[in-house]
């Protein structure tokens, strides 16, 4: 008897992706070691920087803010998201290393569903994470000026950004198949966020570094996100942040798709 499998046509790609996304979320949730750093680390940085740099807010070049904590609200959330987005790649690399990825490839699962499912899982978990971080900031007195509308807009931006950043870690996971190499991407993302207006205003920087920070796509995303936090809600700021996330996403998701095709050829 020959057992032929009528591959991807049996199930709708979206349904399969949803199942795999759910698996990704549940898998992440069941391993607190994987997601607690995404909350603890950015909050720790926020607490430290607000105590280190509170006096800097008195400098004339510093934007008008209630506190340094309010200034770094968007940076804190985006940093947590980048941590979690890196975890998406790490989990995929583990799947490759343990052979689960190859088993998926041999099963009647649509090829696109595997990639979409992994990234969708990261987006869902990031939205949850951003909401938790936002609530903690509100509790500590750094609520966004625009109230619920601004808070929701920042959560949406964070979730969208996790998709763009997740594309990089997923690409590295697919290229190397090594969780360790994928983990090594996180510090690079951290640095990319650092060389922007995330933690300090570009008005207080100088020379080529200021130019680099001003040209960094993260600055284009963080500045409007920060305005949502310190000035109040505006569709223009939300749209500007989402536009630049889409620009970054075209590049990173394109990379991950190419890496995915390369992995499929090797599988």
């Amino acid at each position: 008897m020959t057992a032929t499998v009528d591959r991807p046509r049996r199930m709708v790609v979206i349904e399969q992706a949803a199942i795999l996304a759910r698996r990704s979320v549940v898998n992440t949730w069941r391993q607190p070691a994987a997601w607690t750093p995404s909350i603890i680390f950015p909050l720790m940085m926020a607490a430290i920087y607000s105590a280190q740099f509170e006096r800097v807010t008195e400098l004339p070049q510093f934007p008008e803010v209630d506190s340094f904590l309010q200034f770094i609200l968007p940076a804190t959330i985006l940093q947590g998201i980048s941590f979690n987005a890196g975890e998406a790649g790490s989990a995929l690399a583990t799947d490759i290393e343990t052979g689960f990825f190859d088993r998926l490839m041999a099963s009647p699962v649509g090829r696109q569903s595997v990639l979409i499912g992994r990234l969708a899982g990261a987006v869902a978990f990031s939205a949850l994470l951003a909401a938790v971080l936002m609530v903690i900031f509100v509790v500590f007195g750094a609520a966004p000026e625009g109230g619920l509308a601004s808070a929701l807009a920042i959560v949406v931006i964070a979730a969208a950004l996790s998709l763009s950043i997740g594309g990089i870690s997923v690409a590295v996971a697919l290229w190397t198949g090594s969780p360790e190499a994928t983990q090594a991407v996180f510090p690079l993302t951290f640095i990319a966020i650092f060389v922007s207006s995330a933690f300090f205003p570009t008005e207080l920087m100088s020379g080529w570094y200021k130019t680099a920070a001003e040209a960094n796509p993260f600055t284009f995303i963080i500045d409007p996100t920060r305005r949502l936090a310190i000035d109040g809600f505006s569709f223009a700021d939300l749209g500007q942040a989402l536009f630049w996330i889409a620009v970054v996403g075209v590049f990173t998701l394109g990379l991950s798709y190419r890496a995915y095709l390369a992995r499929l050829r090797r599988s």
Partner: protein
Amino acid sequence: MTSTHVSEREFAPYWSTVEILTRRALVRLVRMPSLLIPMLVMPAFFAVSFTGTFEGVTRVEAFPTDEFINWVAAFAMVQGSIFAGIGAAGAMAQDLDNGFIDRLLVSPIRRSAIIVGPLVHTATRALVPVTVVLMIGTASGLDFPGGVAAVLIAYVAGIGASLVLGALGLAVVLHIGNIRAMAIVQVLAFGLMFPSIGQVPLSLMTGWLYDVARVNPATNVIRMARQGFIGDVSWADTWPGLLVIAIGIFWFGGWARWELEQRAP
């Protein structure tokens, strides 16, 4: 002695085991550029990005130096070295995942060599970030009022910090048992480094941070590494750092050894 024990003469020579494990880790590092690149890039970015981002802090009254690189170079070196230590723990995590450690545990080798090998590897890796930051610092106008001693002390602090975090990383990885432990190790490393005098002096800190940074052991190591870039090298600024490193290696190395013993069949 029961028949299940391996006699003293049947163990492989200790230091040759350490050497082989160290060489294996270094060869793996060279063969995987994706692991090597962050080792070179990270300390460079630490030096450049901290200086560039927080340069404006020197405008606050009473900041100890006009050039932020003089203040932050030591922080970048120690931070980069700590990442070198974490990398060694990452390699151990992968070896746990692929079963290599289990095979070592049933081999006739001294178990402490399984810990010491990665630590020697860590110390070797730490030379890279310190050298990179010194080169970038020199190009960016880093001062050396402490002369040659400033450079030597910086290397001692970097290697020491990498050994302490390497040992801590090994202990955590062995305790948790897989690559996901690395995220915790990274948070621990940042958690140790940032609430310290790495970026601003104690006099600029407000609230709880002042009290924490004052007693944070990383403060002593950073102060030791920094002293030669902002003044003369002195024993008073050196011994607290050395003491922290010695205690850290002993404590976390012991913990890692104990965790390894729990995994033994």
